[in-house]
């Protein structure tokens, strides 16, 4: 318990240092663009692949579960769209990103710690948490909602393709379903959730990487801890945010 409180304290102190005034805004800006490229654009492919397959699978499963002559088949499209918007493209993609981005951030910063690169920054008079972590937070918080939107789009395309190729339901019924009774609030809800997840992933992973002591084995362990804890907190945040926003 005391260890947990101490860790929360260290995490908050790190956050305070992270949000200190940058030494040179232009350098931080360039670093942020680099992080968007690494963690944002670099994650598009995995998001697209996962979303297409899951969108297709949800379409097949929903059709299987609600196959009833009394229910119109366009409801499959409605269910796919809402499943993607409400849970899959935010929370499930959040978990996927926790694995991809979280482990990358924790191991990158962890290796910088054990090879004394962070000490080198501090000796130069540079606020290492600000320089290393702030651009990562900005990049993930602003780019994960975009990944969420991409995921929704790709999931819907996956469903469309399976209707087209697999003859699950008629394509025009699917198209009608995904447009039927659409609440834009669902999209903003999903984007807000993923922005929170982005913050959780980047800060927790950076925290674990920043406090690594030892060598390569410790970096690996820190990376695993960062991913596991991020996943747990994403699920917890999902529950809390759903209660608050929906």
């Amino acid at each position, binding site marked *: 318990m005391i260890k947990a409180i101490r860790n929360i304290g260290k995490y908050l102190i790190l956050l305070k240092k992270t949000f200190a005034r940058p030494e*040179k805004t232009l350098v931080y800006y360039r670093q942020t663009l680099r992080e968007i490229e690494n963690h944002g654009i670099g994650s598009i492919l995995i998001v697209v692949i996962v979303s297409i397959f899951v969108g297709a699978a949800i379409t097949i499963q929903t059709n299987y579960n609600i196959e009833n002559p009394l229910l119109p088949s366009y409801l499959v499209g409605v269910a796919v769209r809402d499943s993607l918007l409400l849970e899959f493209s935010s929370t499930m993609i959040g978990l996927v990103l926790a694995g991809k981005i979280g482990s990358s951030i924790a191991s990158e910063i962890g290796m*910088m710690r054990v090879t004394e690169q962070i*000490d080198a920054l501090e*000796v130069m*008079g540079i606020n290492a948490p600000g320089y290393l972590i702030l651009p990562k937070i900005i990049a993930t918080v602003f780019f994960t909602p975009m990944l969420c939107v991409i995921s929704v789009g790709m999931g819907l395309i996956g469903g469309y393709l399976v209707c087209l190729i697999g003859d699950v339901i008629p394509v025009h019924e699917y198209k009608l379903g995904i447009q039927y009774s659409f609440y834009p609030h669902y999209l903003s809800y999903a984007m807000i959730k993923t922005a929170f997840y982005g913050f959780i992933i980047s800060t927790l992973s950076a925290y674990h990487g920043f406090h690594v002591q030892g060598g390569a084995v410790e970096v690996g362990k820190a990376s695993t801890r960062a991913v596991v804890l991020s996943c747990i907190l994403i699920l917890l945040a999902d529950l809390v945010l759903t209660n608050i926003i929906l």
Partner: protein
Amino acid sequence: MITVKNIHKHFDDRYVLKNVSANFERGKCNLIIGESGSGKTVLLKTIVGLLIADRGHVFYDDQDYQSMNRREMNKLRKEMGMLFQGAALFDSMTIEENVMFPLNMFSKLSKKEMQDRSNFCLERVGLKNVNTMLPSELSGGMQKRAAIARAISLSPKYLFCDEPNSGLDPKTGILIDNLIKDLTEEFQITTIVNTHDMNSVLEIGEKVIYMFNGEKSWEGTNKEVLHTDNKDLNDFVFATNLAQQIKTK
């Protein structure tokens, strides 16, 4: 000049520095020597501010480092250059970007001026045609030299070197030592070198401090280090059979 007064530092129940006091003079290579675990790295990290002493003071030209606020500390740190044991070059940047990094952060030079300064520093440490290479593409000795180039890019007043020869062959080690000595004299820097390499001690040790079990056990020059009554230092200096045979002769 850097002065440390009555420095104490402990981790958990173990004291690693006990009442260490010393002066490190300007324009000279000041060496801290001692066995592994004798506290020399902790002392160096305390001097540069990476560790905070439990008790005692570090003075940079009479300014008390421990009592400075964050802003004053960062201002002073811009006058420091440090060479780490593993070079600590930023592995995502090219050599030129590494050397330009402190200039980029703290100077108002144009890109062309920064490139010129970077080229000057790289040439000064004997590196040519490595600007676009990544640190991983260089040998250990070249990485150390690139790290020295980065350390001197802002014309520091204080240079700190932690085990500059570790992992290098004796010839390259001496090359690095002489480079550190030349830069110290040329730019009148206060240089502190942490080492357990006797070649370095004899080559550049204008002032030598011997650490033993967290305490300063001896102080002198490279000329005096071979003729001392200090038993612990003699055990350290003449640790090899070859050295003992030379001493006996």
